[in-house]
């Protein structure tokens, strides 16, 4: 066993830790033997993790009948799915832009308007998903401002072959094949997923509920080769190829343009790493990563006008990380890396020229255990790059175990989000809607200056003269949590958080054409905060029955708007249009955020393989449009209604490797076509899985 642990520690950061350590037992408490890699960039027992972390294991994914990453994330406390430009995740009130999505520690790229479509990620070969909340996860660099979601793929060898197929409403078909091969020195796993649906998705600019047929093929291949007892090589590939048929209707000024579109998105990820253990106290790994996301959207309007939109994001990274155990009480990690990144887009000045950025970074982290009850972790990362100002991300966190029942965690950290390529290089004029233009900050002054010399600029706003190179957005977060396990059957966790965000990059009008059409660019102007409470409970009522629940309360605000409201310079209108001064009590804060969110799950499992569950999700109303004549969101604006949705699933795992499952999502058929385009009506599914179990 000891030897196993060493090997696992050694393989750990690259491939999911082997199944021998993580008996995926649905332990109630956080004191289980789960191992977490995301929080500290090294394997740590969950019970020793100093920052807020949520683990979703494969069993939960299977029992909930989750197919895509969105399916499972929407049921987590503190996470909300957003719609528009694909399904993104809002974490503790921060937009999808601020959460980094990793697969086995490597970031996914290819965001549209800051949103990474999480439907791209199939869950068929996932071992677990780790979610670290708050900027205390700052060792991951840009985008890890709200948090980190790390998807760890399965690398177990107990199941040589597994196949499953699922069919459901909207002709949704999902088929998976997993195969593994393990010899003394070589491990191989292949995963194939085919997904096809008649769809129901909604495209941007269309308010109508339309069906968008999608077919998606995903595959991943993992190879691990043991060169010597202390050295191994790992090579992973992943490919997602999706084709979407989108027949859309765009209305503008009463003219509706119908078009037939095809969208083709390809996502390729290649990872290679060389890992070496010098001694029990020192190990190092060299990793290289290449990913390319290519999205091609072709629209042919019925009047025959073609429109195409290309996005090609290439991201390459090399990194070294060395882990050093100085003593039983002190361990440290050091790392450094470099990123070459480039984007080609038809929304930049030329889709043939790739806009590039290079980043160099270094980080270190120290973990000190002065006594059994206390763990303190401090770390810092520095990112230096070519296109914008550099950024420091420090963090400090601690865990204090009062006694076996009570644990207190405190973490403080600073994270950042670099200006993205769109904010730097966008060169987009919306011919379909008013001919307004948006120019990225890196080019805005040059482009507008040229237009001005050609006499095309009608007016320049004061914001124009404020344009300069963008600063990264940054956030300082504090998380305090208390875990209480009054008895082995009950677990309660309460967490309070506050994030203060500055240098928010916002679209601002900087001028107007002579025609009056608006010209926009990006400036660092916003300051905001999010704060709230999260509560999570689990209770094992009997060997078969267990209950779990979660609740999040969140308050947000734009600090500049609050200052204006306090100064009495923000007004609102009543239903008759009469203006009055807006009071702070009517201020809502940031849009698209529900103050209350809760979920509850009843789980039933028997020891002869039957399982069933029922999940209830609740989300309170959220502001969607500013309709009462001011720039702030207040109680007089338009809201999406709060709602409850209900999910259930049941099945049986037979001892011969066969599993049957059926389920119903959104049982009450709750639909809000305007505000919840990602929520289809009631859907049913049935799935069958067969696995050959290696009795080894």
């Amino acid at each position, binding site marked *: 066993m000891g030897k196993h642990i060493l090997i696992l520690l050694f393989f750990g950061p690259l491939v999911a830790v082997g199944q021998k350590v993580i008996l995926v037992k649905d332990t109630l408490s956080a004191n289980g033997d789960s191992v977490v890699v995301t929080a500290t960039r090294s394997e740590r027992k969950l019970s020793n993790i100093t920052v807020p972390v949520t683990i979703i294991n494969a069993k939960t994914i299977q029992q909930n009948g989750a197919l895509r990453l969105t399916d499972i994330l929407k049921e987590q406390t503190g996470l909300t799915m957003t719609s528009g430009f694909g399904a993104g995740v809002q974490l503790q009130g921060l937009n999808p832009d601020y959460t980094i999505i990793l697969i086995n520690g490597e970031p996914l790229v290819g965001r549209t308007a800051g949103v990474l479509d999480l439907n791209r990620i199939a869950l068929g070969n996932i071992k677990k998903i780790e979610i670290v909340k708050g900027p205390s996860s700052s060792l991951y660099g840009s985008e890890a401002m709200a948090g980190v979601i790390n998807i760890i793929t399965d690398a177990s060898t107990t199941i040589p072959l597994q196949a499953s197929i699922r069919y459901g409403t909207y002709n949704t078909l999902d088929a998976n094949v997993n195969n593994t091969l393990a010899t003394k020195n070589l491990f191989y796993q292949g995963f194939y997923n085919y997904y096809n649906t008649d769809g129901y998705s909604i495209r941007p600019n269309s308010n109508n509920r339309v069906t968008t047929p999608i077919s998606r093929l995903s595959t991943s291949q993992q190879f691990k080769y043991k060169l010597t007892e202390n050295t191994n090589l790992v090579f992973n590939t992943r490919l997602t190829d999706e084709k979407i048929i989108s027949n859309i209707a765009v209305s503008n000024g009463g003219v509706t343009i119908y078009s037939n579109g095809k969208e083709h998105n390809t996502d390729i990820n290649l990872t290679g790493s060389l890992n070496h253990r010098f001694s029990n106290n020192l190990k190092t790994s060299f990793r290289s990563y290449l990913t390319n996301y290519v999205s091609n959207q072709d629209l042919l309007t019925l009047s025959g006008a073609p429109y195409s939109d290309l996005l090609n994001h290439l991201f390459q990274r090399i990194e070294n990380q060395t882990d050093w155990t100085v003593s039983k009480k002190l361990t440290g990690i050091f790392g450094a890396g470099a990123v070459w990144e480039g984007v080609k887009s038809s929304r930049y000045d030329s889709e043939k020229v790739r806009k590039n950025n290079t980043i160099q970074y270094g980080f270190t982290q120290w973990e000190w255990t002065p006594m059994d009850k206390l763990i303190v972790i401090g770390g810092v990362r520095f990112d230096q790059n070519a296109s914008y100002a550099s950024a420091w991300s420090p963090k400090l966190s601690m865990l204090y175990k009062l006694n076996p029942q009570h644990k207190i965690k405190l973490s403080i950290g600073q994270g950042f989000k670099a200006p993205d390529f769109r904010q730097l290089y966008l060169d987009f004029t919306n011919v379909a809607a008013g001919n307004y233009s948006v120019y990225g900050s890196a080019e805005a002054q040059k482009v507008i200056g040229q237009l001005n010399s050609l006499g095309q600029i009608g007016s320049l706003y004061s914001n124009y003269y404020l344009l300069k190179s963008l600063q990264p957005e940054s956030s300082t977060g504090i998380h305090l949590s208390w875990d209480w396990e009054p008895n082995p059957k009950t677990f309660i966790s309460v967490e309070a958080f506050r994030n203060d965000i500055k240098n928010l990059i916002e679209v601002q009008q900087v001028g107007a054409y002579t025609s009056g059409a608006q010209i926009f660019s990006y400036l660092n102007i916003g300051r905001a905060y999010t704060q709230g409470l999260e509560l999570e409970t689990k209770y094992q009522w009997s060997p078969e029955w267990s209950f779990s629940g979660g609740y999040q309360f969140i308050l947000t605000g734009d600090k500049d708007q609050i200052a204006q409201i306090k100064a009495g310079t923000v007004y609102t209108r009543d239903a008759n249009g009469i*203006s009055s001064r807006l009071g702070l009590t009517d201020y809502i804060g940031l849009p698209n955020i529900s103050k209350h969110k809760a979920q509850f799950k009843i789980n039933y499992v028997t020891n002869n393989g039957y399982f069933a569950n029922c999940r209830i999700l609740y989300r309170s109303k959220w502001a969607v449009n500013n309709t009462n004549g001011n720039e702030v969101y207040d109680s007089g604006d338009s809201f999406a209604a709060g709602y409850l949705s209900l999910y259930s699933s049941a099945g049986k795992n037979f001892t011969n490797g066969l599993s049957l499952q059926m389920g119903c999502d959104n049982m009450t058929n709750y639909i809000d076509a305007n505000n919840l385009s990602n929520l289809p009506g009631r859907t049913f599914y049935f799935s069958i899985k067969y696995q050959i179990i290696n009795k080894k």
Partner: protein
Amino acid sequence: MKKLFTQTILASLVTFTLMACSKTSDTTVVNNTPVTATVKDLVADTVLGVDPKTGPYSAGKYTFYSIENNSIVPNTDSATTKWDLAFMSTRILTNGGTSGTGKGGAFIYKGLFEDIKTIAADSVFKTDNAPSAYAITTGSGKGWYNYDQLTSLITPIAGRVLVIKTASGKYAKLEILSYYKGGVTLSPTASDADKLTKQRYYTFRFTYQPNGTTTF
């Protein structure tokens, strides 16, 4: 000549329609006492139809309004000082500068209608200087309204008061309450057809001081 004739006919037709659908209330004209009134659903070049190629079209006519008399002024009097304000879609003219022969002008006050007891002595009334500058600034976020690209809705900015100098050089304060028929801004989820045809109906309230002073 024929064109002018057609225009006149059209204008009178429009005016007739306007008079038919706008109604006024609380009108008491006593010299020296400020007059407060609310005008509902004043038509301002409403959309007549949608051309499948070029989009929505309208007659392209201003609706002239006299603040002093609280009534619509026929288009035939456009070259006189009988009108104080003229409305066409989101644009509002004052009777002065390039727009008219009167002494009219305006400025936009940021604050509440009730806050203006007396027009501050250092206030600067601007006059129309078409096509680049109007006393009542045109454009989303710059004058009296915001235009939301996503919902295609025009909302009067809260806390904006138009301080008006009439054609004869008297003063009024005016708050635009709605740009949509019935005096209520449409819901963002309203149909495209409603968003097109129910817009360009002004509802506003004003207080006019007939004695020529700046105190209301």
